[in-house]
């Protein structure tokens, strides 16, 4: 075998603070040439921050970065690139209105040079994309590409610059399983050519599949490092969370009265996704109703109707058996319906508002937070502090803009906002999307606790495992139509899958006729 491995990268005692939040606390990491190191950790553990420091996008408060023995100056992406470090960000850094080739060649040639040598660049891009199986047209507008294709452009961007170390920040979060396999195949080709990779993920099976070594971060500190050969998924999960990961146990529930009921509700289509087609659904106290289905089959319309954003074109909404005429978001909130929105960034929070303001967003008019039209900041602040404390929202304080929080902590604040209002009905739309195992278990246990307290929970999820684990009753939604209710354990995943593909519905129509 090879003698001594060449050290490609070494991070030494990196510390970075954002205000009062210490994102990285004396973190050290090394990477050998041709090695894949996975950086594992919960949301907010400081993985992305560490990589942004390595790539020169943040300046560390202390610590040094060395690439192939050379110290690179802090906070200078150009120096990092010149030293051979490339990064594929979790949120792609591509300009949509430019072509693939323009995005790749941006900044490669000196800005003072008069020629751009488009033919040469094009030939090189074509050669690279053939060699590494990264099929994408150089002339395509990036805005017209799929997410998977955009990621290929990002990888090409790095390869075009002959990077020797590639950082991949959660590259598989946006990919289908098939695309993930393709990505791994590409990476293996590049590794064989001597590329070293830092792979950030919280999907344990992917880490096991691609990495040689794992470094775990927890709360911004090093929690340990192991060789993949010496560990397994359970051990990694335990290292990541500090405790053994245990999914919550689900006891049987006793459903009560219908708190919210939809009767033959039909809504208009939402963009390309279908609206609801004559859907009837009762949300009962003390029950979790799971809505399973492939994305874009009417889940958005269902969430909009239950949350009050859309009132039905046909059909009725009933609250505790009384028909509601004027169904608005305010009416929904006031009648005890709490929403965990699908997209916490776009509709769940206001990025530049602080935690206090976000905590009272839905109920600022209620007597809890205002009197005679004046906001009561003291009570609001106390409410936010209580949520932060009770739901373990990791943040520097209630006056922090919420955009500074990691996704998991943002979701915990939303969860606190929802649950502290003691809602009758909880609309949980993709409540754990993008969260790590620790946060997922926490959110699930809180939803179960709300159920046991007597709330009705509508759980909308594209993750069938999640729906099957939590729900007392499962409906499948396909093309805006709702399947009959299935009890827990009544259906196998394969049977539900048939419904999700729209197969059972024809039979039902046949029975009806």
């Amino acid at each position, binding site marked *: 075998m090879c003698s001594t491995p060449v050290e490609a990268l070494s991070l030494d005692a990196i510390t970075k603070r954002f205000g009062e939040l210490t994102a990285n606390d004396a973190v050290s990491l090394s990477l050998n040439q041709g090695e894949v190191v996975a950086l594992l950790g919960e949301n907010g553990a400081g993985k992305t921050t560490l990589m942004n420091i390595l790539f020169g996008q943040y300046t560390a408060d202390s610590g040094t970065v060395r690439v192939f023995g050379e110290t690179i100056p802090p906070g200078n992406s150009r120096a990092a690139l*010149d030293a051979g470090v490339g990064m594929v960000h979790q949120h792609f850094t591509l*300009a949509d209105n430019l072509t693939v080739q323009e995005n790749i060649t*941006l*900044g490669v*040639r000196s800005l003072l040079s008069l020629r751009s040598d488009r033919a040469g660049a094009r030939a090189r891009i074509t050669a690279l994309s053939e060699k590494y199986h990264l099929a994408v047209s150089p002339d395509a507008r990036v805005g017209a590409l799929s997410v998977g294709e955009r990621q290929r452009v990002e990888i090409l961007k790095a390869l075009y610059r002959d990077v020797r170390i590639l950082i991949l920040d959660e590259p598989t979060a946006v990919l289908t399983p098939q695309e993930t396999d393709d990505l791994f195949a590409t990476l293996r080709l590049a590794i064989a050519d001597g590329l070293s990779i830092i792979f950030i993920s919280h999907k344990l099976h992917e880490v096991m599949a691609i990495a040689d070594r794992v470094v775990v971060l927890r709360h911004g500190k090093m929690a340990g490092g192991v060789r993949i050969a010496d560990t397994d998924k359970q051990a990694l999960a335990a290292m990541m969370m500090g405790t053994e990961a245990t999914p919550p146990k689900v006891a049987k529930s006793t459903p009560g009265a219908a708190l919210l009921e939809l009767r033959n509700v039909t809504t208009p289509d939402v963009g390309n996704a279908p609206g609801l087609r004559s859907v009837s659904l009762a949300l009962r106290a003390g029950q979790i109703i799971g809505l399973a289905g492939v994305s874009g089959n009417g889940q958005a319309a269902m969430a909009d109707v239950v949350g009050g954003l859309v009132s039905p074109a046909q059909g009725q909404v009933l609250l505790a058996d009384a028909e509601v005429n004027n169904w608005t978001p305010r009416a929904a909130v006031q009648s005890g319906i709490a929403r965990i929105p699908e997209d916490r960034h776009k509709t769940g929070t206001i990025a530049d508002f602080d935690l206090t303001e976000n905590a009272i967003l839905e109920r600022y008019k209620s007597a809890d937070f205002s009197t005679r039209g004046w906001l009561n900041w003291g009570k609001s602040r106390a409410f936010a502090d209580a949520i932060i404390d009770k739901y373990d929202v990791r943040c520097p304080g209630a006056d922090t803009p919420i955009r500074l929080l990691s996704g998991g902590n943002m979701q915990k604040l939303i969860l606190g906002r929802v649950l502290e209002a003691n809602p009758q009905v909880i609309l949980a739309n993709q409540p754990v999307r993008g969260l790590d195992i620790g946060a997922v278990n926490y959110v699930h246990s809180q939803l179960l606790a709300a159920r046991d307290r007597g709330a009705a929970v509508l759980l909308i999820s594209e993750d069938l495992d999640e729906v099957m684990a939590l729900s007392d009753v499962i409906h499948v939604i396909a093309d805006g139509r709702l399947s009959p209710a299935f009890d827990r354990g009544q259906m196998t995943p394969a049977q539900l899958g048939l419904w999700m593909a729209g197969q059972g519905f024809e039979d039902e129509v046949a029975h009806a006729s």
Partner: protein
Amino acid sequence: MEIIEILFTASFWAAAIRIASPLIFATLGELICERAGVLNLGIEGIMVAGAFAGWMAVYSGTGLWVGVCVAMIVGMGFGLLHSILTVPFGLSQHVVGLGVTLLATSSTYYAYRLALPEVTSPPKIQAFQPYEIPILSDIPLLGPALFSQTPLTYLAFILVAVVAVVLYRTPLGLAVRAAGENPAAVAAQGLSVTAIRMGAVMFGSGLMAVGGAFLTMSAFDSFFFEMVNGRGWICIALVVFGSWRPGKALLGAVLFAAFDALQIRVQQTSLGTQIPYQIFLMMPYILSILALVVMSRRAEVPAALMVPFNKGER
């Protein structure tokens, strides 16, 4: 019809091209700023400052082309101020732009009074004279209209091509466009968004000032208060009209100028005696608004226009 006859006179088109020239300079300047992601509402004031600076330099004894350079430098100075406030400090581009317009306009008037405390009518200078390009200027209709203009007009047309080539064919132009589309992409490729944006705003502001200088050094031969008269705001609209593309913006500038030249001539026809002249004055603006409404539906706005970028912020 008299209007049709007007459209076929060389003097009408010559006037249109002349009126369009300052608009072309300033529109290109604004276009460059906006392509890099910065809305520069300082344009109106910077044109006033440029008009004064170029004219004053020539009046003090420099050559005409030196005067153009002086105007450019003054414009770049205001561009520097604008870009420091909007790019590294990330302040509101609307507020800063209007502030620069107010500052540039009033400090120009102040400088005018300091330089010429006791004059009642502003002195004249020897302005740029039309230069007839040999052979080309002999083409009927087109010749006198296009090729008997002042050198600054020729420069304006050449600049359109130069800016288009730089924007679309060079690494620098790519970096400028990318800074206006997604500054994070520029930073991720190791370039300085701050430097690119500040450079674009400064150069663009320089062009705006040259557009102003055209008024005092080519169209007229003296400096008057209010002579810019809203041309800067027209240029903001022309950038939108041109969908942030130099060629289309040129077309827009000539179109607007043609309406302007037309309305002056229509006032002198029989129609002009029947209709109040204010109606004709409104015409180019109304037609621009209509054209804008039609054209801007398909306009491709730079995605990061007016979005400040701060490296290292999350």
